[in-house]
């Protein structure tokens, strides 16, 4: 039974990674850039929800929505102010800018909220589920997180495959030049991608802080990196890949914490990434890039 308990908390952690990884993977797929500030958007989401629900007493579900919308606005602003002027610049410049944005957000949070750890109250106010005469306990947070992740994944897949904005995103992702020549506004499409990714980061932030109820200005950094690893593991640019990568990573991390060593768990996770990339450089679901001559 302990195994199932670890497995389910791994799935729940993986679901959070997956939601964050979606933001990385979509932005990479369309803007061809790694948005290393994505993890810090999660942290901002956590602080927004914290401020709304604990300091201002807003209903926690409404606080979640406010947090997601706040992150969406933040993501669009970051893209507009920091990344759009660099469109067409070398990818290294964009990468360094993203790291700059990451430190900027962390330090703004430090300035406003201080370095002290805030204790976050879970927004999910439900009793845990007890199975097999109480031998297996599943927290409500784990259940909600996994369900939210699956719903988000389904909606996003529908959006990308069934709506015209989704096709426009795929078109820009595949060939930005040809897409703009067909009248698609690539800047708006990239902005939309950041909006969606950051909205999801806001939700992920609240879910993360509900399961691991501490909040500091660097809360988003490690989950951000893990989610990035998940996106690469699954095949960066692929939506189902981000989902699979996230779940795999979460399970792997939790099981290695439980059975091998909690100190070594991160090392194990990153070693798996290295091994997968050695065998399949494009990740599990990634397509082989054929260079056109």
């Amino acid at each position: 039974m302990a195994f199932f308990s670890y497995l389910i908390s791994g799935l729940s952690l993986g679901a959070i990674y997956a939601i964050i990884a979606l933001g990385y993977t979509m932005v990479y797929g369309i803007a061809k850039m790694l948005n290393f500030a994505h993890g810090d958007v999660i942290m901002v989401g956590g602080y927004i929800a914290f401020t709304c629900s604990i300091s201002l007493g807003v209903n926690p579900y409404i606080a979640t929505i406010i947090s997601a919308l706040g992150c969406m606005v933040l993501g669009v602003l970051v893209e507009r102010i920091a990344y759009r002027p660099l469109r067409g610049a070398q990818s290294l410049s964009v990468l360094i800018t993203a790291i700059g944005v990451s430190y900027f957000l962390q330090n703004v949070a430090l300035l406003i909220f201080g370095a002290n750890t805030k204790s976050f109250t879970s927004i999910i106010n439900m009793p845990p589920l007890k199975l097999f005469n109480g031998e297996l306990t599943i927290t409500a947070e784990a259940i909600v997180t996994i369900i939210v992740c699956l719903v988000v994944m389904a909606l996003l897949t529908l959006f990308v495959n069934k709506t015209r904005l989704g096709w426009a995103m795929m078109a820009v992702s595949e060939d930005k030049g040809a897409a703009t020549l067909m009248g698609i506004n690539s800047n708006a499409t990239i902005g939309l991608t950041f909006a969606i990714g950051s909205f999801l980061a806001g939700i992920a932030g609240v879910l993360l802080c509900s399961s691991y109820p501490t909040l500091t200005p660097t809360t988003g950094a490690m989950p951000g990196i893990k989610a990035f690893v998940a996106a690469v593991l699954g095949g960066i640019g692929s939506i189902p890949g981000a989902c699979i990568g996230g779940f795999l990573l979460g399970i792997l991390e939790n099981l290695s914490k439980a059975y091998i060593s909690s100190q070594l768990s991160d090392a194990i996770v990153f070693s798996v990434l290295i091994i997968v990339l050695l065998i399949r450089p494009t990740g599990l679901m990634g397509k082989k890039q054929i260079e056109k001559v």
Partner: protein
Amino acid sequence: MSNIEQNKNILEVTSLAISFGGLNAVDNFSLSIKNKELYGLIGPNGAGKTTVFNLLTGVYRPDQGEILLDGENLVGKSVEEINKTGIARTFQNIRLFNRLTVLENVKVGFNAFNKYNLLDAVLALPNKKKVEEESNGEAMELLKVFNLQDEAHLLAGNLSYGEQRKLEIARALATKPKLLLLDEPAAGMNSNETMDLMNTIRFVRDKFNVTILLIEHDMKLVSGICERLTVLNFGRVLKQGITNDVLNDPEVIKAYLGD
């Protein structure tokens, strides 16, 4: 169609120039194309033909000169604005959206004419459904013209080479251009396919009332369908005029064959 309309210039380019690092890629380039004309742009490799296309579509901004489409100035507009004003193109090396289906490729072209906004799309409002049904019908009509209706739900990347070329034209037409630019449409085609393509191009011109400017190396296609030609050499206009006169001009022959 009245004489006046037919003689109206749809495209007016005057003394266009662009240089890259001191090299005058295109210099003092002027061109007038009449409404519904089939116009050819030819010249040796590296003469600047594709650069002209990139200037017309806004990918490059000219150092000087003027581009008027149907009286509207295009210089300074963004690529997508120029597309919406009425210029669409195909590519020498096919650039379809291979991860989208044939139908979706065409519908992406309708993008500029979206009659519903983001909120409608996200919330799946009735307006969206109606627009979507209309545009599905419209897209299928367009595919029928190119005999691609049975492939509508295949991924574009799975079409044969000839079909991909046709789909590129269909996608460009979906943006409802006044001027259609074809970049080496006959590249990689055998003579039967080229004959077929010539008929398609004429048919497209008549059915969609578009003006067509094409870059081509295949002289059979050029002499077969182009009414007038411009020959570019080293970024400058070498000769302009009626197709047969231009092709028999000693200077043009020299530029192509050397001394």
